């Protein structure tokens, strides 16, 4: 279907698609098997200017909106959401600086992220703070001209690989949500170390580690925005980034559909290709309906969010939930269409099914997203 992209948007799609097809697809199974961080591919993406898409022009980026990064992530996700996650995490790490950072922080960090010379990551989750972000126990205490940070962040994408980390910590526990602040941490800051790389069910090309802060001292001016604005920055960051996760979902679902149709056309049983049987056709039709409806919703939400409306959370949550649920369903059905072959690692769909699961969990579980949508509905109908 034609979504009437502008010429520049079509260029983004073409470049991302070429990287997906030529650079990622041939190596995705190997990266998955070896749990290998895709540095060479990310370098290729940097060379092709993809890191600059959502970074403002004055800091060396293209100044694209949520929509422009969405269409790029969809293409990368079609090949491998492990690579897609490692790529997308850079923007999750950069958004807090774009949204709330001082001019000095923006000048210092954004150009190198836009050029793909330095990778970024985002540190929110802790052992006791997942869906309930108010359980954050990491603290930051001002001591003279330095913040002293203590605590441990868990399951941080690009952990150990990134150079720049935007991290939330409590600066005043008594104030609850209003007592949290965000900071920029650099790999190499004294007292900042990493846990071992986690072993995961899927998205194995991405690196996931703990961030460990033991009396980690950083300059005073590394705080993002004013003290106490951490949660607002996190919420705004996630509103902007969730369509990216939806995009990985649409891409993964498209990739799974592509594999299923290709296989169904060439697999012969009872003397005919299995695509000629209605049982298979109907499965493929439902998969295609899912992919196209998820894409339509995603594109509309991403365009809406790009206009920076007040109720962007609902749109952001809706596309995230729908596209990632579709991704899980379509990947599972793709394995079913391929039957026994689909279950084997020689074919890409078993990896897609393993990978898809995380989409329903990270950047806010789909249950939490439904809470957001439900609460927003409650508010809308109370006016």
């Amino acid at each position, binding site marked *: 279907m034609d979504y009437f992209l502008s010429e520049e948007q079509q260029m983004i799609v073409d470049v991302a698609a*070429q990287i997906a097809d030529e650079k990622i697809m041939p190596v995705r199974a190997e990266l998955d098997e070896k749990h290998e961080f895709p540095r060479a591919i990310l370098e290729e993406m940097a060379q*092709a200017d*993809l890191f600059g898409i959502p970074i403002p022009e004055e800091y060396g980026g293209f100044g694209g909106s949520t929509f422009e990064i969405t269409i790029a992530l969809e293409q990368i996700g079609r090949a491998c959401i492990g690579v897609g996650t490692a790529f997308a995490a850079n923007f999750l790490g950069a958004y807090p600086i774009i949204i709330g950072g001082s001019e000095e922080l923006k000048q210092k960090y954004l150009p190198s992220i836009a050029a793909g010379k330095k990778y970024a990551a985002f540190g929110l989750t802790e052992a006791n703070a997942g869906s309930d972000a108010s359980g954050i126990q990491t603290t930051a205490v001002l001591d003279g001209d330095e913040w002293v940070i203590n605590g441990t962040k868990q399951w941080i994408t690009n952990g150990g690989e990134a150079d720049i980390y935007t991290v939330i910590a409590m600066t005043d526990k008594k104030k609850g949500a209003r007592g949290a602040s965000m900071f920029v941490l650099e790999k190499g800051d004294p007292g900042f170390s990493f846990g071992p790389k986690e072993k995961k069910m899927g998205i194995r090309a991405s690196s996931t580690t703990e961030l460990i802060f033991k009396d980690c001292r950083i300059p005073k001016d590394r705080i993002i925005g004013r003290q106490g604005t951490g949660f607002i920055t996190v919420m705004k960051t996630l509103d902007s980034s969730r369509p990216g996760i939806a995009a990985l979902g649409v891409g993964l679902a498209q990739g799974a559909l592509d594999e299923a149709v290709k296989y169904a056309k060439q697999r012969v049983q009872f003397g005919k290709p299995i695509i000629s049987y209605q049982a298979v056709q109907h499965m493929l039709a439902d998969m295609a309906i899912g992919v196209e409806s998820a894409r339509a919703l995603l594109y509309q939400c991403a365009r809406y969010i790009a206009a920076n409306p007040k109720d962007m959370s609902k749109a952001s949550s809706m596309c995230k939930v729908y596209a990632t649920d579709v991704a899980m369903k379509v990947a599972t059905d793709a394995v079913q269409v391929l039957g026994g072959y689909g279950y084997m690692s020689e074919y890409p769909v078993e990896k897609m099914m393993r990978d898809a699961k995380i989409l329903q969990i990270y950047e806010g579980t789909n249950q939490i997203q439904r809470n957001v949508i439900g609460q927003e509905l409650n508010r809308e109908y109370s006016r």
Partner: protein
Amino acid sequence: MKIIVCVKQVPDAKDVKLDPKTNTLSREGVESIMNPFDQHALEEAVRIKEAQGGEVTVITMGPPQAEAVLRDAVACGADNAVLISDRAFAGSDTWATSYTLGRAVKKLGEFDLVLCGKQAIDGDTAQVGPGLATRLGIPFVTCVQKIRETDGNTVIVERMMDDGYDVVKASLPLLLTVVKDINEPRVPSLKGKMKAKKANITMLSAADLEAEATCIGLPGSPTQVVNVFPPEPRGNKEIFTGSVDEQVDKLVAKLTPYL
């Protein structure tokens, strides 16, 4: 360093079909791409430019729609693009093409290096690179797999051979044809694509080249294609079945009498 890269627009080999009646390539509905070997030549030129400075000019000879490969080349880092196009060039064989490209390169002025793909995947002759060097009166090295050193006066390259490679030192100006092992071509960048959209393409006609009418197009092409046919299937064949070990045993049994 001033580098000229010769590229050709060819049908994408993934889609190529033979017309069963004429045994010629059926180009209808087939996507056109930059000849894959030429992509490696372009990548090498851009890498030399990035490392040492200079300018990369990409030239192609073909119909007006061949402009697409020139824009692709600009998107991948070429600075200038030249399209040599004229109805009078139609039907050129490798002899006439070498002559025409030679006229064009001379018209472009001073250069240090000409890079070509080893061959085009449609004609597969591998003659135009050496032919062009001969027309220009400069030395050439074919099947280059690596450029070891360039200092502006000489280059040291590795020429791929069946049993390894030769190391060749040659003086500039020089023409090299390259094999795919030389590098991994980049994906075009967004900035490159935007630049390519706006790029000026220099057009050169037969008149611009002051080409002699008897040397170009069909009249300038001594090659005659008498017949095109698929090769005869080779000899008797036998396909082994069974487990890998069984198949290996059968193969060894078959080969042993010849030892």
